[in-house]
């Protein structure tokens, strides 16, 4: 009796997230965030590379994201990634965190246009999702003095001056452009790698 109910429950919930999907989302989130943090921390020593980090992260992490959404192909995978990303990278600045969640929801919307089946929409959604890389920088846009003071304390005055010289009013737009550019590069790599390795292995 009880067993029957369980089986039925699983069939009914096929469009909803199941435990397996949650596990995939959570663990891909861990990979995504570790890669992001490594990239930003190692390249972050040089102000220019720090500012253009959306490109680097987009290029490397696109494959992880694509695998995650292709594996789950339901509503929620990108959202969970976005929430984990927001909490891990912009915990100190609430607007940045909220922005990350909004961006993730937008990415879900793009995928919903393809009814979670269209491969092009999966790819396209990363262009939106990579805007999450702008979120940690919201602190720099809206809270510039504090950010510069912090950079001075951590990395020394030269570094802070370097960051400050880049942090003009145009920076948000430039970084959004960089994030899109990075996502496009990343998608190029991701679609190639997925075709070459994962489709052959029958994982996706």
């Amino acid at each position, binding site marked *: 009796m009880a067993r029957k109910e*369980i089986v039925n*429950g699983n069939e009914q919930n096929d469009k909803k997230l199941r*435990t*397996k999907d949650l596990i995939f*989302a959570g663990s891909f989130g861990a990979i995504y965030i570790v890669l992001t943090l490594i990239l930003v921390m190692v390249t972050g020593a040089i102000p220019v590379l720090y500012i253009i980090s959306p490109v680097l992260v987009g290029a490397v992490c696109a494959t992880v994201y694509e*695998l995650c959404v292709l594996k789950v192909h339901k509503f929620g995978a990108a959202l969970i990634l976005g929430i984990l990303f927001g909490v891990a990278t912009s*915990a*100190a600045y609430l607007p940045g965190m909220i922005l990350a969640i909004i961006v993730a929801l937008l990415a879900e919307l793009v995928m919903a246009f393809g009814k979670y089946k269209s491969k092009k929409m999966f790819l396209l959604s990363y262009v939106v999702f990579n805007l999450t890389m702008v979120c940690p920088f919201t602190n720099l846009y809206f809270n510039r003095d504090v950010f510069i*003071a912090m950079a001075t304390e951590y990395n020394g005055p030269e570094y802070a001056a370097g960051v400050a010289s880049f942090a003009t009013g145009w920076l948000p737009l430039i970084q959004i452009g960089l994030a899109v550019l990075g996502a496009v590069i990343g998608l190029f790599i991701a679609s190639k*790698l997925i075709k070459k390795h994962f489709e052959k292995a029958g994982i996706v």
Partner: protein
Amino acid sequence: MDVTFYGGDNKGLINIDPRTKLLIFLTSGVVTLSSFSDIGVAVYSVLLCAIIALCGKPVTALKAIVLLGIVLYLRAILPTSQGAPSVIIMIITLVTTIFMFGFPMIMSIMLIVKTTKISHFLSAFQAMHIPVKAIIPVAVFFRFLPTVADEWNGVRKAMAFRGISLSPVQIIFHPWRTIEYVLIPMLFSSMSVMEELAASTMARGMDVDIKRSSYEKIKFGVADYILVVLIIGIIIFTSILGNMVKGGAVL
């Protein structure tokens, strides 16, 4: 790296609730991103090490504290050392900065990963009537961080074994190839771990939407209350300090 995944031998002097540990993790983010001095981060890091030692991992805590001491010493003597070439000073500043920035986060992740059982983690949050579907991604996220580190080590060793170097020169001149060589094996092996995790949760009956019972004792103890008060104090203190700098004449 001897990471025991969610190794939860309750040999510690105090047992902290997983919820307090998650709060500590979030606070680490706030402290590193809004503290303005090495001293603040150092004091917070020492506090973290003390908590880890009390929770039953004194060796880990001791190693971390020695490392922190060395880094702080280096940072203290750097501005006064004139003789050294500037390249070395730059490299040391760089490495110690990354270290200081990441240390509290890594230590609080250690606290969660090394001293908490996954079932304890799950049941603590279920006791707060948070739905399982919201808890599982977070629990898996923390469970997976050491796995990523492990897989990364494995990939690096395998690459070295085949004579593919991971030097900066290689990364700069062959970025696409490096991405492929690092990412693909890491993702493949992580995915098999994920499949195993999914099977194991299935076996534990997580798929069913019925309230689960647990052997774990979930209770906020005296240590938890003290820590929570302390943490809220730290959050208020750092955010006020941040505002003072914002209002002050810095830049």
